[in-house]
């Protein structure tokens, strides 16, 4: 059947592939960038293959700060954030979307407020809170705010998905004698796996790339996350862009790999999800 479509819509096909190319290009561009010096980046060769492969950029990126340590910190913080966010957002969204109690719309609106707040706004109150809870220079000083910030959007997405599941499912479960916890875990969760898988990626990326909060709240060398490594290259007047590119490549390639591997899981989850429902 797709043969027919291809013949009929060549322009659409071209558009799809062109758009894909434009989407992937920055990845290639970043790789090139990380091998160049400032002059090549800005003046002589901003877009093409580097004229000379400057591995020294990677050397300085690797030696300037403790890449493996920052990397492990990033992994730890991001993974715990993902687990925490998804778990509490699922519970909350399920209760608000399908259970019966007064004020649930209000509760949902309340949590959504978190989406509107640029983190710069609440940075100082947040820093004071972290100090008052004695969390300064612990992993929790990053993880808890990350969860709190990501819970809004995750809740909203899960809410949407829970709302579109047929309501008679719970009735059936109830008649079968399952309790609410079993229903949630065994019946509802599998139905929203596509959403869960998608949000895992979203939250992971948000935590992985987060800069302002980490800059503000972490000063202990042992706890720093990867984005803070960029600090070592950005001077008051000049910036070593090539080394910064190398650091960014080191920081982003894992996320690209994680995404490629994980999106396969998303796809599988989706197939399972729609099969159950259909």
């Amino acid at each position, binding site marked *: 059947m797709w043969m027919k479509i291809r013949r009929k819509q060549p322009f659409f*096909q071209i558009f799809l592939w062109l758009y894909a190319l434009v989407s992937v290009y920055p990845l290639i561009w970043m790789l090139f960038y990380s091998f160049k010096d400032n002059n090549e980046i800005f003046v002589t060769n901003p877009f093409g293959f580097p004229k000379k492969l400057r591995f020294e950029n990677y050397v300085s990126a690797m030696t300037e700060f403790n890449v493996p340590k920052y990397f492990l910190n990033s992994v730890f913080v991001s993974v715990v954030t993902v687990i925490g966010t998804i778990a509490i957002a699922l519970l909350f969204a399920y209760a608000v979307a399908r*259970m019966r109690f007064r004020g649930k719309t209000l509760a949902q609106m309340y949590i959504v407020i978190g989406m*509107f707040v*640029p983190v710069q706004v609440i940075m100082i109150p947040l820093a004071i*809170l972290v100090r008052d809870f004695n969390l300064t220079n612990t992993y929790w000083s990053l993880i808890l705010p990350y969860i*709190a910030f990501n819970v809004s959007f995750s809740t909203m997405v899960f*809410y949407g998905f829970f709302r579109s599941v047929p309501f008679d499912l719970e009735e059936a479960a109830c008649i079968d004698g399952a309790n609410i916890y079993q229903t949630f875990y065994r019946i509802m969760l599998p139905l929203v796996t596509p959403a869960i898988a998608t949000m895992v*990626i979203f939250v992971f990326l948000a935590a992985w790339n987060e800069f302002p909060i980490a800059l503000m709240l972490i000063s202990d060398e042992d706890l720093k996350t990867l984005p803070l490594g960029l600090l070592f290259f950005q001077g008051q007047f000049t910036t070593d*862009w090539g080394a910064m590119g190398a650091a960014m490549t080191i920081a982003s390639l894992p996320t690209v790999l994680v995404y490629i591997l994980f999106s396969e899981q998303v796809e599988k989850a989706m197939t399972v999800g729609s099969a159950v429902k259909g």
Partner: protein
Amino acid sequence: MNKFLGNKIAITLFIAPALLLFTVLVFWPIVQVFYRSMFEWDGLTEGTFIFLDNYKRMFEDSLFYTSLYNGLIFAVILAVLQISIGTVLALTVSDGLIKGRKILRISYFIPVVLSITVVCQLWLAMYNGEYGLINKIFEALGLSYRQDWLTDSKTAIFAIALVNAWQYMGYHFALLLAAARSIPEQYMEAAKIDGAERWKAHWKVTIPLMAETYKFCLVLAITGGLNAFANMYIMTGGGPGTSTYTLTYMMYRSAFRVGEFGYGSASAAFLVIECLIVTFAINRLIARDRIVY
């Protein structure tokens, strides 16, 4: 059923963790922002209570109107571009008729995966008046027009919005794809017809079924636009002059460059209210009843 879905203990257990964490770490600081917006305050000392004077001053500040306008432009561009392109791509990839859909699916999301710094640097290079790729393309096409969008105070905000729209289109794509995949198979069958008919079917059947997803895509795009900060911070520093300021940027300038935390809080408070109103309106406009299959 009422007892089943109205189980008080379960409800408490389900909503307490999120409410608690959110209230302490996000809501409480917001309350402080509103409270502090009524102070003349440098962020460190006691400060003086001046009630609504910050707001009065803000409504007379031309920077406030520039920021407001830019936020709206940003929001509209994001909403229109991200959702329309996201829809077309998501529906195409989801219907399983396209060859190489796996590669396409992965590609469309790549810009989201990269950090915003990388993407902004790339587009700075693209927009560059002298060495930029966009001008080279114009040249190759034989057009005499040369863009200088980022450094023109009238076009800069559009140029930046385009970058953000492009980078985070993948979010909407992924969300819409997940939604499309959650639609039961029999409804998608209808959309498996050919050509223009297929899009008509999507319009009539698939898209309405995804209303809930559209609701949060819209909220995401619009509030993301009103809140925009990082893109201008990296690409223009709010410039040329003040032409790419947004409310968040205005807050940043007041709080950190000028040291007027109270005044900055006023623009932040305004921003929060603005976003609340928009979200409320979206929730009203898009049917909020559950979809009945």
